[in-house]
C-alpha cells in the first residue's frame, strides 16, 4: 500500500477553482517532485495536505488513515511535516528550542511536571536535548544551538526548518522550495542533505522546487501542475521531454 494516496483532490476559493482533480500516489521512501509555473497551485496542494486549507472535494489518505480536512495539529500527529516557502521559524527562540518545539508530541510531559520539576522533567528534557543535538548535527547546526533562530544566516534557517520538521518524526516530509535563494554550491549541498535524510530516516519526501537541476537530480517521480490541473506525471526524463510541460513553462499552445 502506498504511503500517501491523493484522489480527485480539489479546492475552490469562491468562484476560483485553484486545484482540481489532483491524483497523486507517493510510495514509502520515495523522493517526489511537484513542479509547475508560478500560480499553478503547488503551495495550495501543500496547504491542503497539511490541513491549512480544507479541500472542497476529494480525499487524502495517509498510511491507510483518511486525513482529509483534519486540523494541522491532527495531521502533524498523523505524520506529515512541512517547511514553508517563506521561512517560518520561532525567531526569538534558540536554535535548540526550535527543534525541541518540533518534538512537542514526540517527547511529552504535562504542565505540572514542568512547574514542579518532577523527576520525569529532567529525564524527558535530557532525552529531548540529546535527540535535538543529534538532529542539529545532521544539518551542521550544532555549533549554533544556543543562537536565536533569527541570528542564523538564510541558508541555515532553511536547514533549521527541515530539522524542526524532522523532529516531529514524520512519515512524509513536505519541502516548499527548499533551494530558493541558494547559490549553486549550497543547492548541491542541500541535494545531498535531502537524499541522506531520506536514507537515514526512511521517510518519503514531497518537494516543490523551481530549480530544475535540483528536481531532476533527486526526484524519482514528478507531477507537473498547471492552472491547478495535472498536465504530466513520470520520471525526470519523460517530464523533460514532455511537450505539454515545455509549453506550460515557455508559453505557446
Amino acid at each position, binding site marked *: 500500500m502506498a504511503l500517501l494516496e491523493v484522489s480527485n483532490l480539489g479546492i475552490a476559493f469562491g468562484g476560483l477553482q485553484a486545484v482540481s482533480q489532483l491524483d497523486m500516489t507517493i510510495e514509502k521512501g520515495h523522493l517526489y517532485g511537484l513542479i509547475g509555473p508560478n500560480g499553478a497551485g503547488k503551495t495550495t496542494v501543500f496547504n491542503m495536505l497539511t490541513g491549512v486549507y480544507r479541500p472542497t472535494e476529494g480525499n487524502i489518505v495517509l498510511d491507510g488513515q483518511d486525513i482529509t480536512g483534519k486540523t494541522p495539529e491532527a495531521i502533524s500527529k498523523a505524520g506529515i511535516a512541512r517547511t514553508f516557502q517563506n521561512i517560518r521559524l520561532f525567531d526569538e527562540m534558540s536554535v535548540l528550542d526550535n527543534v525541541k*518545539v518540533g518534538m512537542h508530541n514526540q517527547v511529552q*510531559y504535562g*504542565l505540572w511536571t*514542568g512547574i514542579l*520539576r518532577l523527576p520525569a522533567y529532567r529525564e524527558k528534557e535530557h532525552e529531548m536535548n540529546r535527540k535535538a543535538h543529534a538532529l542539529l548535527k545532521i544539518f551542521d547546526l550544532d555549533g549554533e544551538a544556543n543562537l536565536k533562530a533569527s541570528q542564523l544566516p538564510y541558508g541555515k534557517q532553511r536547514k533549521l526548518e527541515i530539522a524542526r520538521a524532522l523532529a516531529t518524526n514524520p512519515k512524509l516530509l513536505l519541502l516548499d522550495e527548499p533551494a530558493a535563494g541558494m547559490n549553486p554550491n549550497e543547492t548541491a549541498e542541500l541535494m545531498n542533505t535531502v537524499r541522506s535524510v531520506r536514507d537515514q530516516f526512511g521517510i518519503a519526501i514531497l518537494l516543490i522546487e523551481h530549480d530544475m537541476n535540483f528536481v531532476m537530480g533527486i526526484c524519482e517521480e514528478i507531477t507537473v501542475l498547471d492552472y491547478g490541473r495535472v498536465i504530466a506525471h513520470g520520471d525526470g526524463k519523460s517530464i523533460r521531454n514532455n511537450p505539454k510541460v515545455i509549453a506550460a513553462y515557455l508559453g505557446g499552445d
Partner: protein
Amino acid sequence: MLSRLKTMKKTTRSNLITFGIVIVFYLVVQILSGAGLTTRSFEGQLVPICAYVVLAISLNLTVGFLGELSLGHAGFMSVGAFSGVLLWTLVGDSLPAFVAIPLAFIVGGIVAGIFGVIVGVPVLRLSGDYLAIVTLAFGEIIKNIINALYLGVDENGVHFSLTDANSMGLSADGETLINGAMGITGIKKASTFTIGFVLILITLIVILNLINSRTGRAIMAIRDNEIAAQSVGINLTRFKLTAFVVSAVFAGFAGVLYGLNYSSLVASRFDYNTSIQILVFVVLGGIGSIRGSIIAAALLTVLPEVLRGLQDYRMLIYAIVLIVVMIFNQSPQIIAWRKRIIGRFSSKKGEPEKKEVA
C-alpha cells in the same frame, strides 16, 4: 562560587540572579526596619509593592511570552481580592491564621482562574488590537458587576442582589458581606511583607519553571509564529488558554495579598487605570523580561510616594513614559544609535551584548 556561576546554563544563571535580587531586597528591608531606619509610609508601601511585582510577572506571561496584549488584568486581581477577602472574613476568626490565610489565597487564585477560563475562551479567538479591546471591556464588566453586588448571609443562607441592600431580603440579624460600591469593610488586616515575599518567590518559581518547560516553549512558539506552531502539532487554543489562565491565577493571588492589606475593599480600585499601570510595569521593565518586571513594579510603586507633589500627573507621566519607551525600543534610528553606544562599551569585553530572555 563565581566560577560555578559562569559554567551554568545562561537561563539558569539569569534566573538565579532574579531570585537573588528579590531575596537581597527582602533582607535589606528587614534589617533596615529592624534598625528603625524605614519610614512609616515606606513600610506601608511594602505589601503593595509585592502585589504589583506579582501582577507584573503574571501579566508578562500573557504579554511577553504569549505575545497577546491584555488590558483587563485588574479584573482578575479584583475577582481574586474579593473572593479571597470574603473567605478571610468568614473563616478568619474560626480557623488559625496559618490555615485561613493560605486558604484565602487558594480560593482567590482558583476563582480568578475560573474567570480566566470564562474570559479566555471567547477572547483568545481574537488577536492583537481586538483582543486588547475585549480584555479591557471584560475588566470593566467585572469591576461594574462587583460594584453593584450586594451579598449577605443570615440564618436562611446566602442572599445576593444587584440592585440595593434592601432587596437582598436579609433578616434582622443577617450580616452584610459585600455592600455594593462600599465593598467589603471591617477587614482584619492579614498581609505582611513576609507573606508578600513568599508569594513573589512562589510566583517566580512557577512562572520561570513554566517558561523553561515544554508548555512554555509551546507558548513562545505560538507567539513567534502561529502557523508554524500548528504545523508541528501544537494545539493553539489549549496553550493560549494555559498561559492566560496561569496569568489570571497569579493576578488573583496578588489581589488577595492586596485586599488583605487594608480594612476595606472597593471594586473601583481595580479599574482601567490599574490595568494600564500593571502594563506600564511590564513594558518599562522590558516585555519578556521577568527581572525587568520586578524592578519596574517596585520602583514605580515607590516613586509616586516619593514624588508626592506629582501624584495628580501620574497617569499623564505614565502615558509619556510609555510612548518614549516604545520609541526607544522600536524606532530604527534609536535602535541603531543604541547599538553604537552598547558596541562602544562591550567591544572592550570582546563579546557583543545579547538580549536576556528571562
